[in-house]
Each structure stands twice: as C-alpha cells, then as structure tokens.
C-alpha cells in the first residue's frame, strides 16, 4: 500500500479527505504512483504533470522520507519506507503567490 498526500486543492478536486492509499502491481516509482493516482482519480490528470509530456508542473514538488525527489528520474524506485506504507509520498505545492 502506497500512501499519497495531496495538496488541499487537489483533495477537493478528487473528492477525498486526508491521505490517498493506492495498491500498485508494480514497484513504486514516481511514474507508477502517478499513473495509478490518475487512473483512480482521473480528474487529477493534467494537474500534477502535463497530459502529454508527463513533465511535473513547475510549481509542484515530490517529497518522501525528508528527501526532495522532484528532480529524480520518474523511474527511480521510491524509498522502501514509501513502498512499505510507513512513510507517505508527498505532493507539495511550492510556496509562492498569495
């Protein structure tokens, strides 16, 4: 089980409260987690990464286990704690604007 923490505005769009939990049939990477997240919550398509290029939107960051994974390859395995569900995968909105 993978735990994902979404920014508040995306929780509203997805009609969820609190963390989202996902079951993955493949090893967890940023790509596989986002693929499953968008499959479960298609209204999030395009809000975290571009529809076509799958590039992360500029003002979003990916954190886990106190590490910034935003610039890692999307196919890099996530930390074991995330795979085990003891730590969440965090999607964070950059602190910008007002």
């Amino acid at each position: 089980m993978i735990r994902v923490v979404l920014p508040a505005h995306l929780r509203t769009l997805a009609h969820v409260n609190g963390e989202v939990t996902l079951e993955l049939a493949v090893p967890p990477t940023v790509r596989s987690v986002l693929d499953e997240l968008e499959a479960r919550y298609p209204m999030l398509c395009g809000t975290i990464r571009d529809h076509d290029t799958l590039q992360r939107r500029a003002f979003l960051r990916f954190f886990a286990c106190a590490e910034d994974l935003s610039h890692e390859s999307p196919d890099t395995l996530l930390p074991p704690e995330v795979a085990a569900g003891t730590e969440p995968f965090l999607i964070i909105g950059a602190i910008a604007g007002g």
Partner: protein
Amino acid sequence: MSKVRVLVGTKKGAFILSADGKREKWEVSGPHFAGWEIYHLKGSPVDPNRIYCSQTSGWFGQIIQRSDDGGKTWFQPGTPPGETKTPDGTPKGESNKFKYDVSKETGAPLTTHQFYDGTQHPWEFKRVWHLEPSHTDPNVVYAGVEDAALFKSTDGGQNWRELSGLRGHGTGPQWQPGAGGMCLHTIILDKKNPNRIYIAISAAGAFRSDDAGKTWKPINQGLVSQFIPDPNAEVGHCVHHVAMHPSKPDTLFMQKHWDVMRSDNAGDRWHEVSGNLPTDFGFVIDVHAHEPETIYVAPIKSDGEHFVPEGKLRIYRSKSGGNEWEALTKGLPQSDCYVNILRDAMAVDSLDSCGVYFGTSGGQVYASSNAGDSWAPIVRDLPGVLSVEVQTLP
C-alpha cells in the same frame, strides 16, 4: 416574475449573485472553487442551468467545471461527482486537455510567436480566458485560451479540439503577448449567421471567420497602435474587448489598448469613436440589451496607471454609438477610488429596463437596473473581479 443570475469570476473563486426582476435584494452564493482563479463563467443561452466555468491555477493548471443545475453543484465534464471511472474502469475526465492541433490532416504548424523581448517563442497552453456557449446547442462551447488559440467542444466540455485555422492562418509569428499574456479573450457568435464568428486577441487584433471557424481573416484596418513598428499593421494590435448587439451583427464596438473604435461592416474597417471621453484607454465595452446604439465603457487613466481617472468611478454611456459620451456617476464613488474594470467584467441583462453590471479589481460588483442612470453595489468585498456575466431567467 423574471430573475437574474450574475456569474462572477474572481481571483480567489466564483460567486453567484441572484435577485428577482426588481434587482434590489440579492442572494450571494460562493465562493465556489475557493482559492482558484476563475477567469470566466458563462451560461448556455439554450439551457440556462448549464453553466461552464474556467478554473485555473499557477500550481495545478487548467480545470473546466460544469453545472447542470444553475450553479448549485459542479463537476468536471466526463467525471460526474462521486464517479471517477467508467463501469469498465476506463479513466474519464480529461476535460482540461487543451492540445494544440499539429496533425497533418487538420492541424496547423505549431509556429512561434513574438515574445515580450521581441524574440520568437513557442506556443504554450496556459489557461482558458473565455468560454462562449453556443446559441443553439448546450453541449457546444468555445474556449479562448492563452497562448492564443480557439478550441471547441461538442460534448459539453469533455473533449476539446482546436480550430487551428486561426492560429495557423499565417500571421502567428507577429502575435505577441500583452501585459496579461497572449490571450484570446473575446468570442462573439453571430446568432443570425451561424457560420460567422468574431474573436479578439491581445496583442494580435480581431479576426473573423465566415465558415464556422475553419478559416479566418484579420479585421484590423483602421486600428492605429503606436507601440508596434507599423502603427497600421495588419496584426499586432492590442484589442482589449469587442462587443456586438445581436440585432446588428455587422456593427462592432471595440475597446482597444487606447481608442474606442466602431465598425459597421463586420470589422472590415474601423473608425474611432472615443469622442469626449476623459481617456480612451480601458478594457471593457458592452452594448445595451435593447438599444443597439447605446454602449458603455469604463475609461481607465492610462496604460501605466490601471485605475479610473481622478479617483472617480465613472461608467460612460453613449446613446449614439460613440463620439458623444455622458458620465454615469450616481451611486458610484466619486473620490479616492482607484480600481480597474477588466475586459470581461461587464454584462447586461435583458429585462425590459436593461440592467448593467460590472465588477472591479477591488472586489465590488455594481448593478444598475435602469440602464446606468443609477448604481448600487451588490457586494463590496469580494476578491478582485475577473469577469461578470448575467443570465436573465424566466
């Protein structure tokens, strides 16, 4: 008794203001989509309970929302509330997918456009500025986007297809962004001639299609803009807004960056009608619901000072289609007021005594139930207003 519903897009959410035909007591609903920029909401003329909404964010991009119950509940087209998948598990809800058409069959080459620094820059989708529902089919809606292009949906906003003849008509490399971005902000559908569409872009100019959006021609003759190398160029003009009365579809009124303009031949030739306005810079322009020669503008001090002149909030009305203007001030602040009125932030209702509405950068929405003779605020303290539309309901 008739009712009116005012749809207000703001920098931090949408609001719906409702009143009966007297337009004295108002109910305020919102914020809807709190915290998001709502560039525009507009109802279908065919089914007033069908409302389309452009919800956008620098963080999360573009969302299209739709209501089928007059704004009580909303959903992303293709993804009804509480339902995230089709029965077979196929994801739905890509209503925010605005992809420029570069296909060999129907698309146009994805050229570059001129950037602020004069260099060429690739087209990048940013947001939807304006949604224009069809006069005949509630599932047909047009979207004007930044970077400038026109999209059309025929399935209620679920899927969008670019009408690429506009972006690809040839002058794209000369288009350039205004201060607010390179946006297609005005879409006018001619009710009498379904094949005719007008659009306007900052800063490219106005364009017309006579074949339902397949091909386009620039309609900017007569516009003079000192900020481009050739002030009389075919394109490059910063058109802020265009308005038309449905009974006189060949007559167009334009608020340009500077200058209020008029055309009586469907945009083929424009002439200036700024007349005695205190300043002819501004963003918004609109036409009285029943008097095609009565028009409204909100003069703004200058391109460098985007607020009303002399600290006085004045709407100007011309009953002669321009040139002779009168200031409308009753009920509006006449001292220490420094707000702006953006290009999509004025609308009229179609009650017998025409109502006029506008919203300000200071979060006020003002209404006049007597065609502008007097005004009263509906609300005073919303987030900055980006757009105002009105629905007149039976």
